[in-house]
């Protein structure tokens, strides 16, 4: 059957079950009461007060967890490219002879690219993630997985956990700081990563939680991000990760002149959009043009004496700096991008750690992004219907992440995509994106260095931005303009084999990852 974007989606997939085609960004949410969903039942575990949670090794913890072949194990990616734990656990499970497991991680980074070896060995059967990088992304795009991967947004992952669409049998939580009872936080220790926002949901709904730490501290460990009553076992290992790859000391602003032009345009768009006002809320990514937009926006806020209510999302130290200038009153942090943020979480009462459910889940009584005014997001590709691809790169490989892209685009009052109009000689603005992560109906404006295109659905924005000296163009014109420069490069071809499903935040299927033809 075809979904609303005209993409063929199978009704049923062996080992994944029944699939629901995407019908529009808020269609399912509007009618959700009829589905009468319930929170997933989670196994209640009780232990006698004198019991010792500390276990001497990962193997022992796994044995005691009752993990079986075919089960689902979860991880978080707060240690980003520096994470050691996921691969160490999978290695251990291999040695112990486990098979057919489902890896359910909040995302997968380059640190996890060798996971494909364990797929080949049969240890891992299914992968549910937000992102794919390096060799693993290539492996998936080459069609080497027997069961397609499922890509979820951060909000969508929280939804799938709460509804029980994905039941976590054992959650492995990398804990930069823990006590013997399993009070956990991410703000202290050699592997400090900041917020534990994604892991907090796993801890709440998993049938068993194993906390792994390299920094066992005296009881009680505070602040408490994940409380001891959700944690079954605590394991101490030597190192959770490589501090250098967990995060740089601070996120530096780009010097790339093209990114700066885009960012300045984007800040001017925000300023003139009608959403630039006292109490505005704001989210941006840590990428070049996205973060630079925050810089230009902050300068305008300072000049016009406008103070925002909150900044949210992945928080980088640059956002912390803007907060320190008094330009935002609060920061909500589901994921910290660098070490500068870690110390801010400890020092600033207005810097608040939130979980992924609170952040972006569409199936609750109100995620915080429902109140978001402006979000600035990046793109690999955007098409003339404003659909955005942030997953499949120009070589046809899955090398990106869904992240909070589609979540925030859907809810923010103003969704801005910032991207160069072409990279090397590959156009960013195209007729049809390879893979839709974020549907065009939720995207308002594209800002490039060669022009700004407004989604025709937003007549109000067209009106507000008219006559402000902004280089506004029809998106088709912009695409043609780029084509004059880049010509029409021959793109990679794909077979009909489905290597992955892109699940929209509401659980419907918006697109697929196709198998790339390699020459």
């Amino acid at each position, binding site marked *: 059957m075809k979904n609303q974007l005209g993409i063929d989606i199978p009704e049923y997939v062996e080992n994944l079950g029944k699939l629901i085609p995407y019908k529009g960004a808020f269609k399912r949410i509007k009618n959700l009461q009829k589905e009468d969903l319930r929170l997933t039942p989670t196994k209640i575990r009780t232990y006698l007060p004198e019991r010792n949670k500390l276990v001497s090794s990962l193997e022992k913890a796994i044995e005691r967890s009752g993990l079986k072949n075919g089960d689902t194990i979860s991880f978080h990616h707060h240690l980003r490219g520096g994470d050691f734990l996921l691969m160490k656990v999978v290695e251990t499970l291999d040695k112990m002879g486990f098979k057919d497991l489902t890896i359910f991680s909040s995302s997968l980074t380059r640190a996890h690219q060798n996971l494909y070896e364990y797929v080949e060995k049969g240890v891992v059967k299914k992968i549910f993630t937000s992102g794919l990088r390096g060799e693993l992304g290539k492996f998936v795009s080459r069609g080497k997985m027997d069961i397609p991967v499922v890509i979820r947004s951060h909000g969508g992952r929280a939804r799938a956990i709460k509804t029980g669409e994905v039941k976590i049998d054992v959650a492995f939580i990398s804990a930069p700081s823990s006590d013997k009872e399993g009070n956990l936080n991410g703000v202290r220790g050699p592997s400090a990563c900041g917020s534990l926002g994604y892991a907090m949901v796993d801890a709440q709904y998993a049938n068993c939680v194993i906390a792994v730490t390299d920094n066992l501290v005296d009881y009680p460990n505070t602040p408490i991000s994940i409380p001891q009553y959700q944690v079954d076992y605590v394991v101490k290992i030597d190192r959770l990760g490589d501090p250098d790859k967990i995060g740089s000391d601070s996120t530096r602003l780009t010097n790339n*002149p*093209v990114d*700066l*032009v885009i960012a300045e345009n984007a800040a001017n768009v925000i300023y003139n959009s009608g959403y630039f006002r006292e109490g505005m809320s704001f989210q941006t990514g840590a990428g070049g043009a996205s973060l630079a937009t925050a810089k230009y926006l902050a300068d305008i806020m300072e000049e016009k004496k406008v103070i925002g209510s909150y900044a949210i999302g992945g928080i980088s130290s640059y956002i912390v700096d803007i907060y320190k200038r008094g330009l935002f009153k609060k920061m909500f942090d589901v994921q910290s991008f660098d070490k500068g943020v870690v110390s801010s979480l400890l020092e600033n009462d207005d810097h608040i750690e939130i979980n992924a459910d609170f952040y972006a889940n569409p199936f609750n009584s109100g995620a915080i992004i429902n109140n978001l005014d402006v979000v600035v997001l990046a793109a690999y590709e955007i098409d003339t219907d404003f659909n955005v691809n942030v997953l499949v790169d120009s070589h046809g490989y899955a090398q990106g992440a869904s992240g909070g892209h589609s979540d925030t685009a859907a809810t923010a009052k103003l969704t801005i995509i910032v991207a160069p109009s072409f990279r090397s000689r590959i156009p960013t603005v195209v007729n049809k994106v390879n893979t839709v992560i974020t549907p065009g109906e939720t995207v308002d404006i594209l800002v490039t*260095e*060669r022009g700004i295109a407004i989604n025709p659905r937003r007549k109000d924005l067209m009106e507000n931005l008219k006559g402000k*000296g902004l280089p506004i163009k029809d998106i088709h014109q912009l695409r043609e303009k780029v084509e*004059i*420069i880049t010509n029409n490069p021959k793109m990679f071809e794909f077979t009909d084999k489905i290597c992955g499903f892109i699940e929209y935040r509401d659980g419907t299927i918006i697109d697929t990852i196709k198998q790339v033809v390699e020459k």
Partner: protein
Amino acid sequence: MEIRLRRTMLYIPGNNPGMLQIADIFGADSVLFDLEDSVPHSEKDSARDLVSNMIKYRAYENIEITVRVNPLNTPYFEDDVKEIIAAKKLQAIRLPKTNRAEDVDKLAKLIGKYEKENEIAIGTINIHPMIETALGVENAFSIATSSVRVNAITIGGQDLTADMGIAKTKSGEEILWARSRIVMAAKAARIDAVDTIFADINDKNGLIEETRLIKKLGFTGKAVINPRQIEPIHKIFTPTEKEILWAQEVIETYDKGLKEGKGVIALRGKMIDPPVVKRAEKIITISKLGK
């Protein structure tokens, strides 16, 4: 004569394809593709090819296209001129190390020859002599008036101080006289005067200070080496809202006074005479041209 703003002329190294691609996105009034100092000898020919092909095939938008060729006394000079004119869309050639009017003559003749060869209307391509020697400074007026093709003269601070055997400083007292001399020559010849670059791209305040100074001296614009330098310069060279309102008021009051046959026309107690009106008109023109 065409009126155009030359507040900023952005240098783009001719051997850098990435920069050549994006030359027109920063809002500079002119782009200045460089074949001279930013290109090493081993890349002179490839840079020339690259620049001429980019000018030929790339639709640059809303920007004056100029090229700094290698000096007259180098083996690259004639080929530079020939190739970039053949690309058709060139608007001006910047001639480095111009010492005297005869240097401009030589270039003008060569341009004429290649305009003809390429079926470009004679006189299309302008010349921007770059004065960067003591001799050039002394000959500034004759250089400025040496050809109808010359519609701007420029100063090269680094080479000039080197020629004088002194150091170039940030405050620039040592080139103050040369700057003034060149501005005066340009004003006398009724052409633009474009200032030298500000080398420290991280010192925004220094750039602003220097730009304010050269605007006061009478320069019409400044060469830039980094896109980040464009915006602060444009801000200084673009009339403020207050200035525009004042200019409008001056013109209106003056026109009204003329119609009423008044001998002395005043605005809020200050006399408006033709020079004041002329300055007001210039402010309005610039404000209309500027973005």
